[in-house]
């Protein structure tokens, strides 16, 4: 197989970090290459260099044997390289069709004038390829997260039209927000792409990587540390390479009984909670209990979470925490009552990008940075550094802007925000492990369990059914804004995903 793309000795420094430290990588034609590595290993940086968004400090990129300097996305596209970014990148107020053809409208725009019908057709063609039934003329911001992801993939596939050469298509964590049906469609598409293109695929779900890829290259600390043949490797092999030692197998699989034996005291009681997208929700969470909520798109579970945090209006219902009635009118009251919330859309809602790790971490809990009403920089530094260490957050410094961290590390900071005060009672976690590597996930799981042990109640909207089953003590099934069933999930007597799916339909 001839080589489509080769990277030699790529180096990229950021203030305080060597994101890439002499990476070598070979992408062959007609293969799906997996790229694995912990959060912050340099995957996204490497891939961005391949589409001209990151200017490497040293090293070479060869496309079909020819050394190239990629200056921009257009430049890369002309060389047949295209990418779906880890963070969504669609224009929300344009139609899906426009997003799909954006920047290379071809016959969709003639002499600066839009041909809406042609554009719709072009977009439809792309969407058909991936079997999506999204309305091409729908405004993108009216689509769900997953639908938008499909639009992104439909968009990157346009590269076929752009370059005469077999394209290289890069997918940076495309599955982290997809449903399994959509993932299957995507994988079918990836396999189809292999017929005429090369694909670079990144995911933190290692089984997934091994499933769809032919070969997997592993990055660690900005260096290539080897590769495996996907057909013969198991996730543990990858994981070992990623962390450089024998990794603990501690996944979300419930290991030992964690709960104290005495009956758990009820902490959160929700009665008849109704809002725009949910109604008559009853929910109990006891101290030290993790309750998972599962449901399909539009089940309203996210809005219930937000409502409990005072971030979504409610029309009826009563909520008590520790027997005290909760004020649901604003997030301040929720925080004061000891509730913490980790939103799914980290980039927009979870963190304040330009602010430092330290400030993001201590935004909420004044105890963590103040003596009296005054900020004590020393105290803040102490607390923050302690948590950086505690959660193994990879950051050059507590003063680094959080937007410079890798996704997984950003998530840890967001989570830490609720812990630094030491007064957390109830955690509402919306896809808390989205985009996290295995290690980080285990960290988050361990953290959740430890918090549970200290009596913190948790509501978890999990990334996958397995995660929900593994972590939760009880699972609530929601559909159409209502709670339909509750499935017990005690350690030692866990249901299977299949059992759950049965309950859900």
């Amino acid at each position, binding site marked *: 197989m001839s080589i489509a793309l080769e990277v030699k000795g790529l180096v990229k420094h950021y203030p305080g970090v060597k994101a890439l430290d002499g990476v070598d990588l070979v992408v062959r034609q007609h293969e799906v290459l997996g790229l694995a590595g912990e959060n912050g290993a340099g995957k996204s940086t490497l891939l961005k260099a391949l589409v001209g968004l990151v200017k490497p400090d040293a090293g070479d990129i060869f496309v079909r044997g020819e050394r190239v300097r990629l200056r921009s996305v257009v430049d890369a596209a002309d060389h047949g390289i295209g990418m779906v970014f880890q963070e969504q990148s669609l224009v929300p107020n344009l139609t899906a069709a426009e997003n799909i053809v954006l920047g290379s409208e071809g016959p969709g725009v003639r002499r600066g004038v839009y041909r809406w019908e042609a554009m719709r057709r072009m977009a439809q063609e792309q969407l058909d390829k991936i079997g999506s039934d999204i309305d091409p003329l729908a405004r993108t911001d009216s689509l769900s997260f997953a639908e938008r992801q499909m639009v992104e993939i439909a968009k990157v596939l346009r590269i076929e039209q752009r370059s005469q050469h077999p394209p290289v298509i890069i997918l940076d964590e495309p599955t982290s927000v997809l449903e399994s049906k959509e993932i299957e469609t995507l994988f079918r598409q990836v396999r189809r792409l292999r017929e005429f293109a090369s694909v670079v695929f990144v995911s933190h779900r290692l089984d997934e990587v091994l499933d769809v890829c032919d070969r997997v290259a592993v990055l660690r600390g900005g260096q290539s540390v080897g590769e495996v043949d996907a057909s013969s490797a198991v996730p543990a092999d990858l994981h070992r390479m990623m962390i450089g030692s024998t990794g603990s197998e501690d996944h979300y699989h419930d290991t030992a009984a964690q709960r104290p034996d005495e009956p758990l005291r009820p902490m959160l009681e929700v009665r008849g909670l109704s809002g725009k997208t949910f109604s008559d929700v009853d929910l109990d969470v006891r101290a030290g209990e993790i309750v998972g909520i599962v449901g399909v798109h539009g089940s309203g579970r996210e809005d219930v979470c937000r409502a409990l945090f005072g971030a979504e209006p409610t029309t009826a219902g009563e909520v008590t925490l520790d027997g005290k009635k909760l004020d649901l009118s604003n997030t301040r009251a929720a925080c004061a009552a000891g509730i913490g919330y980790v939103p799914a859309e980290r980039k*927009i809602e979870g963190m304040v990008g*330009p*602010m430092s790790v330290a400030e993001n971490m201590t*935004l909420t809990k004044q105890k963590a940075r103040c003596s009296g009403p*005054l*900020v004590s920089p020393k105290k803040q530094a102490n607390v923050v550094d302690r948590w950086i260490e505690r959660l193994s957050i990879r950051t050059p410094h507590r003063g680094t802007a959080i937007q410079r961290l890798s996704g997984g590390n950003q998530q840890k900071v967001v989570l830490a*925000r609720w*812990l630094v005060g030491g007064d957390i009672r109830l955690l509402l976690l919306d896809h808390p492990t989205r985009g996290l590597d295995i290690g980080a996930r285990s960290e988050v799981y361990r953290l959740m369990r430890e918090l549970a042990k200290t009596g913190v109640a948790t509501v978890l909207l999990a990334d996958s059914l397995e995660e929900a089953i593994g972590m939760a003590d009880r699972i609530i099934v929601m559909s159409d804004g209502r709670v339909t069933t509750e499935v017990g999930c005690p350690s030692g007597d866990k249901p299977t995903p299949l059992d759950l799916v049965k309950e859900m339909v």
Partner: protein
Amino acid sequence: MTTPVIATPDVAVGAGPGAPTVRQRLTSFMPVIALVALLAALTIVDPDFLTQRSLTAAARTSSPLIVLAAGATLVVLCGGIDLSIAALASLSTVFFALWLPDLGTLTTPAVIAVAGAFGAVQGIAHVVLRIPSFIVTLGGMSIFSAVALVVSDAGPVRVADRDATSWLSMYVAGYVPVAFAVAIVVVAVIALVLRATPLQSWITATGYSESAARLAGTPVDLVKVGAFTVSGACAGLAAIMLVSRNFSGSPTMADNLLLPAVAAIVVGGTAITGGHGSLWRSLAGALVVTLLRVGLPIVGVPSAYEQILYGAIIVAAVALTLDRSKVLTIK
């Protein structure tokens, strides 16, 4: 690790690459550099410009603008804008002149408090009704103007008792106008309070990303209302400075200070989109704008060319002062 998470392990803290680089330090001095450059240019054109008397006059002249800009900077940092400051300052001059005979020494605090309250009302309208601050304060601007016209009976109100504001016309150590010193103190006090308390990070978070701030439990609404309140109070104080110079209140006295005040904020390098910036930058910005407003004609630039130069120089000044690494997209 099996220690309960709530327990707190000890970790050594090291200084490191989080500290600002030389370049970052330089960009934060840009407003001062712009100021010095402008002063130098004016001096080259007219060497008489750089005298102690002249600088003292410029300092005194700039005081109300500094105070106005400082207050409004808080609103801008939160991501909003306050278009009412000038009209509110005009109204405050009228209040001061009208109330002085009855309230005496209490007039100053009373005017500042009332102006602050008017600011607060706008802030509350903004956060409760969810109307863009641009519109709320534009409405505020016309309402304050109307009230000022009516209560003043559409004319200046003389201040007979000049002693009430004469302290602002004095000089500290013979050279520094008290009004200027007060302006500096206001900037310093607000800046210090922000810095010493969580307010700074709340304001910054609100300005950069309101939704993330809110979901982090930051008191976004309170912070905004607070910013409008301080902005209003600063308009009140600026009004008193104007009265101390004009010996009267007038319903349109400060109206023309709106654009210079906002220009001062932007020239200082504070991002009009919120988040990034500081009061010190606005202080430097206000001085730059003052020098341009009074300096160009004084050194003999003819009126039409003065406008053209003013336009070109403020743009150039912002090109110099804005730290683009802190502002993601320039709109």
